[in-house]
């Protein structure tokens, strides 16, 4: 155990383990810790050997002699007994009468979590003329649906929707509140969590329950997707989390499920709200494209940007009954719209078959597609990261390989059809 010149036992950081979260820096009572090249460093002459940094470190990167007593310092004072909060709430996102599929994925996940906690699932349904969605919410796993149906909620505004959901959270008091990480959900969750002064963990890829402490375990990729962090919100309720579309499984629709639908009073003054004066739909050929919901994706990368071959790639997508997507450089070159971008700053996809063509596989791209069932990569460079992780890697010039794939798949799918027919 290291000692300083005063003979005091001091703490020491293992640099390889440190993830640079700075929790210890904030915890240290004598400012003995500072960051050096993204890693914490303890000045042993200032350190008083209190062991707080040891207790707070989430990755056991601190060496310290005292027996290990893990006491994470959760934040702030508790404003209301946590036991007052029970149940899992899910925000049901409706746009122009259409429910965002992620809402049902979350209802399915909420069902699973609720069973572990022995509580109910509440659907929070907010909008104008959204009543007809309530029944579907029950079919997908909600036990109750709390409906705020109000004319001024026809268009989404942060303030009105924020107010409605804060009201529902205060009335229903769920211990967990889940929202889809759609553009709307990200906007809304930040507003609601701040008003309720509770914790919010964005873009989770895994949710689970610690039954002993009744805590929601929220797992999300961090540091460019290379580390998974599991985050908890100990002393504040509800425990809020957003989840990207397509990450959780779509539950089956069970029309025989029973539940309670409850209309909730609400009001807001119009003068408080911004006004949507116009709506410009995305051009027709793009609308309806949702790369997160296609079983087969042909993903075009920087190495397949020759516009002459684009029709050929589209044909490949067609024979696999899939659609075209791309990596970020392709959007930056202006060859494809942002709506088709896969990756950290684009969409997260998990198709049954992912075909990467000329996609090198930067970390930011891999984060957005690593949950794909089968990965096929075509690249002239056998050492591209995507090639090394692919289930099937084809080395070569895509302009020569793709035509062979098109005819090959056509032939085989024809013979499949023949076999099926007696």
């Amino acid at each position, binding site marked *: 155990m290291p000692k300083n010149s005063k003979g005091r036992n001091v703490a020491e950081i293992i640099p390889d383990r440190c993830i640079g979260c700075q929790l210890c820096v904030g915890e240290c009572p004598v400012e003995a810790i500072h960051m050096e090249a993204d890693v914490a460093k303890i000045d042993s002459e200032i350190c008083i050997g209190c062991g707080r940094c040891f207790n707070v470190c989430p990755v056991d990167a601190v060496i310290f002699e005292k027996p290990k007593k893990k006491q994470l310092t959760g*934040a702030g004072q508790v404003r209301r007994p946590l036991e007052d909060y029970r149940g899992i709430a899910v925000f049901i996102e409706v746009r122009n009468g259409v429910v965002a599929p992620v809402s049902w994925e979350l209802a399915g996940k909420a069902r699973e979590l609720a069973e572990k906690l022995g509580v109910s699932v509440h659907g929070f349904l907010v909008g104008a003329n959204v009543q007809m969605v309530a029944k579907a919410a029950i079919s997908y796993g909600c036990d109750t649906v709390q409906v705020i149906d109000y004319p001024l909620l026809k268009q989404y505004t942060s303030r009105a929707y924020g107010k409605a959901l804060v009201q529902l959270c205060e009335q229903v008091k769920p211990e967990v509140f889940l929202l889809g990480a759609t553009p709307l959900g990200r906007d809304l969750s930040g507003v609601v969590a701040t008003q309720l002064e509770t914790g919010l963990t964005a873009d989770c890829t895994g949710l689970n329950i610690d039954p002993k402490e009744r805590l929601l375990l929220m797992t999300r990729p961090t540091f460019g997707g290379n580390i998974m962090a599991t985050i908890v919100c100990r002393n504040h309720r509800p425990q809020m989390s957003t989840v990207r579309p397509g990450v959780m499984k779509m539950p089956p629709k069970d029309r025989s499920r029973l539940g309670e639908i409850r209309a909730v009073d609400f009001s807001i003054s119009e003068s408080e709200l911004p006004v949507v004066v116009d709506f410009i739909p995305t051009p027709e050929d793009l609308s309806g494209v949702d790369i997160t919901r296609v079983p087969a994706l042909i993903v075009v990368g920087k190495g397949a940007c020759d516009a002459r071959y684009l029709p050929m790639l589209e044909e490949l997508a067609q024979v696999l009954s899939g659609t075209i997507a791309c990596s970020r450089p392709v959007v930056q070159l202006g060859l494809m719209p942002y709506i088709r971008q896969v990756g950290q700053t684009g969409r997260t996809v998990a198709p049954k078959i992912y075909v990467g063509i000329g996609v090198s596989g930067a970390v930011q791209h891999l984060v957005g597609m690593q949950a794909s069932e089968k990965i096929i990569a075509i690249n002239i460079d056998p050492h591209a990261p995507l090639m090394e992780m692919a289930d099937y890697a084809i080395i070569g010039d895509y302009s020569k390989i793709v035509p062979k794939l098109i005819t090959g798949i056509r032939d085989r799918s024809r013979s499949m059809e023949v076999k099926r027919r007696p």
Partner: protein
Amino acid sequence: MHIICCIKQVPDTAQVKIDPDTNTLIRSGVESICNPYDLVAVESAVQLVEKYGGKVTVISMGPPQTESALREALSLGAHQAILLSDKAFAGSDTLATSYTLARAISKIGGSEPVELIMCGKQAIDGDTGQNGPGITTRLGCTLFTYVSEIRDVDIKNGFITVRREVEGGSEIVKGKMPALLTVELQLGTPRYASLPELVKSLREEVNVWGASEIEALPERLGVKGSPTVVRSISAPEARKGGLTFNAEQDDKAVENFLDKLFDREAATLSEILMKTKGTHA
């Protein structure tokens, strides 16, 4: 008009690579840059002030080296920079960060009223985009997320009209100022600072504010003010590579690949291929 831009210094994630042996992140040698979305916010704030008159103040919360991001904003034409740096801020999650930034904005606005607050729609290292909504809620101003165009600023009556990118299209929204805008990259391209501006930006003073300067409640800052904590860290399940077919050396490589694919993934493929046949028939 007075515009405050909130910026963040981030690791240049484009440079981050994986160590193939240990499957961990190689972070050494990765530069810190100003979050690209935030630079767009600064650029458009400067353009607005060039058109309507006024002043741009940039603020950032972070360790002392964050100063370089603030200087970059100054070189693009921002007028004043304030660094929020204090040991008490370390370990902040979203709730504590939005509290700290909102306190600083209130303090600045106390002496020079603020019409607009602008920030990037997200930071490239975290991608969460929750601070804008958080700050807005604390300050009680109007929120416009995903702004791709500023259509009109009616300073006299205190209204702003913007174009927002939403799913399925974009909407034109008009609302009251003060407002907070989180911006898309389409809003503008940050200019290249000229040499004299660069030199000037290095000479300018960057004020450093701590917890006492922003009159913050200590229990709402940093680790203490953060409801969420990291409980554990794990490596993501790494995918191991599978079969390789070399079409450069073997004419039959594509055929061999298809044979294997249709053999091993027969169930998946028939589901995908037959489904469409059925619906189109």
